C-alpha cells in the first residue's frame, strides 16, 4: 500500500532546476537501461546520523528512487547502512512539516495555523529585537544538532548571543572529549580518529559497535575481527560486538572504572607498558602508579563481577598487541556523573599502550582546508559570558552545556534566558528530566523550532519553521579531520517539497528580517559553496561528479606527536585537575546499586534507528516498530513478567512510560534492564511513531552532573514494573 503524498507541483521550477543542474555538471545521466526512464545521479551525504556517509541519490523526474554509497568517500567506502538506504523514507514521509506555523493554542497543545515565511521571519525577528531590547541578546539561546547548526550559530553570533549548545556535548560525548583533552591536549570529535581496522587488540567499554552503526566504525570493526584481532568487550549486555569478542566481560553497571584501573594496575605492575613511548611523551607515571597501587584485579573482581584471572589475561594479551591497541573511546559517555574520569582512565591506558599517533590506535589526522568566504563584518562582542557556566562553573567544559542552558532558563541564574531557537534536536526527549525542560519552556517568551517532522519539541513551540530534508538541499562541505582527508559535497537531489526551506535559507531569511543582512553576503548557498571551492582550490566540477575530493596521502600517524596540555606532554597525572579541586589521577567511586526490587535502566542503539528521529520512517519502523525491555530470566521470574507481555515500567521517582514489550533474554545481567533509546514518542503528528514502544527518556528523571564539564550522567535511574 503506497502512501499518498500531496505535493505542490513545481513542474516549471523543477524542469528549470534540472536543466540548470545538467548544465552545471551537478548530475550525470546514468546509462539508460532498456525501457527504464533516465536517471540522474546527484552527490550528497547522509544526514540520518552524524557520520555523514557520502552517497549518490538516483533521481527519476522529481523522485529519489535509490540511494547508494559513494565509493570515493573514505568514511564509508561506498556503503550505506539501513538508515542511509532509507533516506527516501524521510523525503516521502506524509507526516512532514510543510509550512511555517504559528501557535494558536497553549504550548504543547499542538494547535497551529499556517503562515507565510515572510510573516514568520518578520514576527520572529520582531520578537527577538524586543527581547534584546529588554534583556539583551544574551537572552536568546540556540540548541542544535546536525548540519543546520552552523547557520543558526552564525545567525546568533551576528545577533550578539554567546549561548549555543549541542546536546551531543553534555548529554553525549562531552565527558569523553574532555577526559582525552585533559590527557592528550585534544578532544576526539567526530568522526573519532580511531584506527580500528589496524588494531590487533580492541577494548570496548560499553561501546556496541555494530548496533551503534557509525558506518566506518562497524566496517573497520568487522575488518579487524576478520583479520583476527583480539576483542574484549565490557558491557552488562551481550551486544553484537560482544558476540564477536574473545572476552565478554559482563561488568556490573557502574564499575567500568574499577576494571580500567585494574588493567592499568596490571600493566604497570608487570611492566607491560610502552616504556619508550611513556618516557618520551608522558609525565606523571609515578603518581599514576601510586594511584592504582591498591587497584589490583582481586580488588576489581569484587566490584565488577569479573574474575581477577580474566582481568589479568586481558591486560596481558592487550599489552602483547601494543602499540596497535585500541581502547575505543566510545561516544555516548554520559553515564554516572564521573564520566570525565572514566575517559581519563581510558586515555591513560591508551597512552600506556603507546597507541597515540600510531597504526591501530588513536590517530592524529588532519582535515583538508576549506576557506571561509565573505566578506562579512566581525561578530559583535557579547556583554556577558554564556549562561551555562562553561569554562567557569564547569571549568573543563569547552563547548555549550545544553542542560545548563536549560537550567539558566529555568532559574534565571546567572541571567534570564527568554528565547530558544531549537534546530534539529528534540529537546523533550534529549535532555534528562523532561519536567525541567517544560518548566524552562514555561519561562520563555519565544520558542522557535526548526524541524522536519512534528516532533515533541515542535508541539511546544511558538513558531515552527519546516526544514527540508537533506535530499532537497545544499549544505556546507563536509571536510572532517580523518586519516584520509577529503571534502564532500551535498547537492540537492530534488527541490524542497511543499513550503520547506533549507536551514541555510531559513537563517538567511531570519537574518535579513533581523537587519543582519550584512552577515549573509551570498544570495544562495550554492553561490557560497562555489566561492569556497574557488578560494580553496577545489575543482567544482570534480566535486559534483565524484561527490568528494580525496587527499592523495593518508595520514594520522606520527612519531612526533604534539600535546596541547599545560606540560606539553601526555598528562597521566593532571596538575590542572588537581588545581581545580578534582582527582589528578582517576580514582574509583562506588556507583549506588539499584534499590531492592529495582534494576538499573540502561539504553543503547539499534542499527536501524537514530535516537528518536527515525521511528516515523516507513522502512525503519518496519524493521523495528517498537523497542523491547531486555530482562534476564531470573529477574523476569522475580518480577512475575513473561516474554512478550506488555508492561508499564516505573522508575524510582514513580515516573512511568508507555507499556513496553518484555523480552526475556539470557543476554543481560539480572541487575539491569536494557532498551533501545528513542521510542515511546508522544507526538500524534508522527503517526507511525506515536506511542510505539517505551521512552527511556520518560524514565530518566534523575541525572548526575559531572562537575568537570557539566555532563549529565543518565544511567542512574532504576526501574521495575509499575505497581499501580
Amino acid at each position, binding site marked *: 500500500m503506497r502512501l499518498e503524498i500531496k505535493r505542490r507541483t513545481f513542474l516549471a521550477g523543477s524542469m528549470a532546476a534540472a536543466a540548470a543542474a545538467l548544465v552545471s555538471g551537478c548530475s550525470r545521466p546514468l546509462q539508460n537501461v532498456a525501457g527504464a526512464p533516465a536517471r540522474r545521479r546527484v552527490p550528497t551525504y547522509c544526514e540520518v546520523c552524524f557520520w555523514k556517509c557520502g552517497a549518490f541519490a538516483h533521481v527519476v523526474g522529481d523522485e529519489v528512487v535509490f540511494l547508494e554509497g559513494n565509493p570515493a568517500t573514505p568514511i564509508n567506502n561506498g*556503503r550505506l547502512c539501513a538508515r542511509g538506504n532509507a533516506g527516501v523514507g524521510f523525503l516521502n514521509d506524509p507526516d512532514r512539516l510543510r509550512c511555517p506555523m504559528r501557535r494558536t493554542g497553549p504550548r504543547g497543545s499542538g494547535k497551529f495555523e499556517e503562515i507565510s515565511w515572510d510573516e514568520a521571519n518578520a514576527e520572529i525577528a520582531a520578537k527577538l529585537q524586543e527581547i534584546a531590547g529588554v534583556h539583551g541578546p544574551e537572552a536568546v539561546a540556540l540548541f542544535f544538532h546536525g548540519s543546520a547548526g552552523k547557520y543558526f550559530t552564525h545567525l546568533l553570533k551576528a545577533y550578539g548571543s554567546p549561548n549555543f549548545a549541542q546536546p551531543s556535548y553534555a548529554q553525549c560525548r562531552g565527558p569523553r572529549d574532555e577526559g582525552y583533552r585533559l590527557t592528550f591536549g585534544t578532544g576526539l570529535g567526530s568522526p573519532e580518529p580511531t584506527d580500528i581496522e589496524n588494531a590487533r587488540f580492541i577494548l570496548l567499554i560499553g561501546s556496541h559497535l555494530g548496533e551503534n552503526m557509525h558506518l566506518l566504525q562497524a566496517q573497520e570493526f568487522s575488518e579487524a575481527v576478520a583479520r583476527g584481532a583480539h576483542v574484549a568487550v565490557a558491557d552488562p549486555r551481550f551486544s553484537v560486538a560482544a558476540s564477536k569478542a574473545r572476552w565478554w566481560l559482563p561488568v556490573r553497571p557502574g564499575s567500568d572504572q574499577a576494571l580500567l584501573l585494574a588493567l592499568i594496575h596490571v600493566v604497570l605492575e608487570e611492566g607491560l607498558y610502552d616504556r619508550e613511548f611513556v618516557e618520551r611523551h608522558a609525565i606523571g607515571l609515578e603518581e599514576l602508579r601510586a594511584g592504582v597501587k591498591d587497584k589490583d584485579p582481586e580488588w576489581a573482581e569484587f566490584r565488577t563481577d569479573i574474575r581477577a584471572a580474566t582481568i589479568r589475561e586481558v591486560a596481558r594479551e592487550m599489552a602483547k598487541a601494543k602499540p596497535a591497541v585500541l581502547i575505543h573511546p566510545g561516544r555516548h559517555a554520559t553515564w554516572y556523573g564521573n564520566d570525565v574520569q572514566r575517559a581519563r582512565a581510558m586515555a591513560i591506558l591508551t597512552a600506556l599502550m603507546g597507541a597515540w599517533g600510531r597504526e591501530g590506535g588513536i590517530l592524529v589526522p588532519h582535515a583538508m582546508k576549506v576557506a571561509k568566504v565573505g566578506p562579512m563584518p566581525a561578530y559583535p562582542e557579547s556583554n556577558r559570558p554564556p549562561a551555562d557556566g562553561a569554562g567557569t562553573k564547569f571549568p573543563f567544559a569547552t563547548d555549550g552545556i545544553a542542560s545548563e542552558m536549560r537550567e539558566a532558563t529555568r532559574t534565571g541564574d546567572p541571567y534570564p534566558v527568554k528565547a530558544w531557537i531549537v534546530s534539529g534536536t528534540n529537546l523533550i526527549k534529549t535532555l534528562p528530566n523532561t519536567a525541567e525542560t517544560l518548566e524552562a519552556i514555561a519561562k520563555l517568551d519565544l520558542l522557535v523550532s526548526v524541524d522536519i517532522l512534528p516532533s515533541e519539541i515542535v508541539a511546544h513551540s511558538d513558531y515552527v519553521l519546516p526544514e527540508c530534508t537533506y535530499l532537497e538541499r545544499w549544505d556546507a562541505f563536509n571536510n572532517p579531520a580523518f586519516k584520509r582527508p577529503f571534502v564532500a559535497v551535498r547537492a540537492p537531489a530534488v527541490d524542497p517539497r511543499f513550503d520547506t526551506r533549507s536551514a541555510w535559507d531559513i537563517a538567511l531569511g531570519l537574518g535579513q528580517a533581523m537587519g543582519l543582512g550584512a552577515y549573509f553576503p551570498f544570495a544562495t548557498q550554492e553561490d557560497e559553496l562555489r566561492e569556497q571551492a574557488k578560494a580553496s582550490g577545489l575543482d567544482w566540477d570534480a566535486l559534483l561528479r565524484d561527490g568528494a575530493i580525496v587527499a592523495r596521502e593518508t595520514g594520522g600517524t606520527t612519531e612526533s606527536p604534539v600535546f596541547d596540555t599545560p606540560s606539553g606532554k601526555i598528562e597521566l597525572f593532571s596538575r590542572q585537575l588537581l588545581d581545580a579541586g578534582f582527582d589528578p589521577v582517576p580514582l574509583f567511586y562506588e556507583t549506588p546499586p539499584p534499590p531492592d526490587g529495582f534494576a538499573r535502566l540502561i539504553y543503547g542503539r539499534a542499527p536501524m534507528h537514530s535516537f528518536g528521529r527515525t521511528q516515523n520512517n516507513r522502512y525503519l519502523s518496519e524493521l523495528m516498530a517498537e523497542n523491547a525491555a531486555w530482562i534476564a530470566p531470573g529477574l523476569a521470574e522475580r518480577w512475575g513478567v513473561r516474554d512478550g507481555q506488555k508492561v508499564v515500567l516505573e522508575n524510582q521517582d514513580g515516573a512511568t512510560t508507555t507499556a513496553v514489550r518484555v523480552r526475556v533474554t539470557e543476554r543481560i545481567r539480572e541487575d539491569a534492564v536494557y532498551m533501545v533509546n528513542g521510542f515511546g514518542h508522544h507526538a500524534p503528528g508522527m503517526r507511525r511513531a506515536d506511542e510505539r514502544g517505551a521512552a527511556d527518556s520518560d524514565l530518566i528523571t534523575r541525572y548526575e552532573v559531572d562537575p568537570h564539564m557539566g555532563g549529565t550522567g543518565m544511567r542512574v535511574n532504576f526501574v521495575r514494573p509499575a505497581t499501580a
Partner: protein
Amino acid sequence: MRYAMVVDMKRCVGCAACVVACQVENDVPEGHCRDWIAQETRGTFPDLALEIRSERCNQCTAAPCVPQCPTGASHIAEGGVVLVHKHLCTGCKACVAGCPYDARYVHPDGYIDKCTFCIHRVREGRLPACVSTCPTFAMHFGDLDDPASEVSRLLASGRAVKVNHPETGAKPNVFFLV
C-alpha cells in the same frame, strides 16, 4: 553458470542495510521484504553465542517451489536463479507453501514475489543491491562455476560453511561462513 551468495557471519552485524536497500531497489511493497536478518542467540548467561544471518530466497538447485507451479510462472532462469513470470502467476500460493525457507510472499498486486538475486542488475554486470550496500563487506555474490569467483574462493577457503536446513534437500545456494 550457477549464481550464489556467501554471507560472512563473522562480519555481519545485523544492521539490516541489506533489507532496506532491497526494498528501495526493488520497490518492495510496504509491509513486505525480500530479505531479512535472523539473529539467533544460544546458550545461557554468560556463555552465549549469537549467530547473525542475512537471509533471502536460496535460489535452490533442487528448488521445491518450481515443480509445484501449475502455470510455469515459477521457473529457473540463468545462473539457476528462480524467478516468477508475473504474467503467468495466478496467486495459487503452492510455491509459497512449498518453500521451506519462508522466502516467498504475496505481492499486493496479486502475484508471488521474492528475491531475484537482483538479476536485472546482475545482467548489467552490477551486484545485487544488498551485496553492494553491506557496510561490513559481509556479503558476496558470484558464479560458483567459476573457480576464480569470490564465492568459489570463499567456499574453498577452509572456513566452516553452513546452509539453512540442508535436510530439506533443496540444495540452497546462499552459504554462510561461520
